[in-house]
């Protein structure tokens, strides 16, 4: 095989010996193959591992309705998810202030979240509460994206809540429903 004959010279004229076959097998190809497979398994096992995004939904206990009013409206930011990967957000009660249409990601809602979060923190000395309301026209990806933004911007308190007709009206006005 790939073994070099380095025994040097031959024994010309000597006794003809029966040649001993070498017991060494060339393992290069086998090792190549083994490492190739190892690489394959390493890559596939680490890359395909899905991630788990833990979420906690607000308790749907009808016995304790008072807890839903515990947060001042001025401290809350409501995010409504509309169609075509667009969202609307406003601070305070619906209808009082005009909602801002925004997109997802770094250049969209993230800026508003950080700015408003700081503003509310300075003004009230308390953290901002974010209420997420996905409409029927939004897709699952939007919900995941917005929760992801919560984790990125380290919003301490957020909740996913059902949308109300008033907010659907807001979306319709901007053509996002």
């Amino acid at each position, binding site marked *: 095989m790939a073994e070099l004959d380095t025994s040097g010279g031959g024994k010309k004229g000597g006794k003809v010996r029966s040649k001993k076959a070498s017991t060494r097998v060339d393992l*290069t190809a086998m090792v190549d193959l083994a490492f190739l*497979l190892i690489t394959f398994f390493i890559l596939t*096992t680490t890359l395909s591992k899905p991630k788990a995004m833990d979420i906690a939904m607000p308790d749907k206990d009808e016995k304790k309705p008072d807890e839903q009013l515990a947060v001042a409206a001025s401290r809350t930011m409501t995010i409504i998810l509309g169609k075509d990967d667009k969202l609307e957000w406003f601070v305070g009660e619906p209808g009082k202030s005009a909602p801002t249409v925004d997109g997802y990601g770094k250049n969209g809602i993230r800026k508003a979240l950080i700015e408003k979060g700081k503003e509310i923190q300075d003004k009230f000395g308390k953290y901002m509460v974010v209420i997420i309301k996905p409409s029927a026209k939004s*897709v699952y990806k939007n919900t995941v994206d917005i929760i992801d933004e919560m984790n990125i911007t380290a919003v301490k308190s957020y909740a996913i809540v059902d949308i109300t007709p008033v907010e659907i009206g807001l979306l319709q006005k901007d053509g996002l429903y």
Partner: protein
Amino acid sequence: MSRAKVSRKSTAIDMTAMCDVAFLLLTFFILTSKFKVEDPVPVDTPGSSIQQPIPDDNLAVITVGSNKAFFSVDGSDVRIAALQEMGKLYNIQFTPDEERKFAATAIFGVPISQLKQFLNMDAEQKKSVQQSGIPRDSVSNELFNWIRESRKAAAALHQKQLRISIKGDSKEEYPVIKDIIAILQKQEVNKFSLITSLRGASK
């Protein structure tokens, strides 16, 4: 005067040890890698920046795609126990053979009335058949019962709370997901996880 001879060394390296190590590692990776369960509907999980991997055991996954819900739960003992309880609830008697087949079924999405038929198919048929999804309307509410019976079974057999996660398709409309969340909340499961994949470096 003779020149000093440079002894020519053999270029062959002994690869036995290297080969041993390589195959040892290979064996390890083959054994530890989990086989990917193929989803009956194409599910493209949305990306996120979450780094936390999903737990390996004691997990129930509700797969949602094309407006259909599929259910899978870890552990063949939990599966069998859940199937028996479901059989009692819906008055269907499953044979031990069918129970064994159900334990080997990683994911399913048929109404319980068609489950017997589904279990008796061979692997090829199971792959090609169009599964209609587990009904989740309020009349039969099979998905609700599947989740509850699996949770009960996991609590009885492993003394652990079953972890529940939702694996949804990116393009799935929100009302479908809302239904699933409502089903979970109805049995007071307020904490669960959404399965996402790692987002690429683009964002």
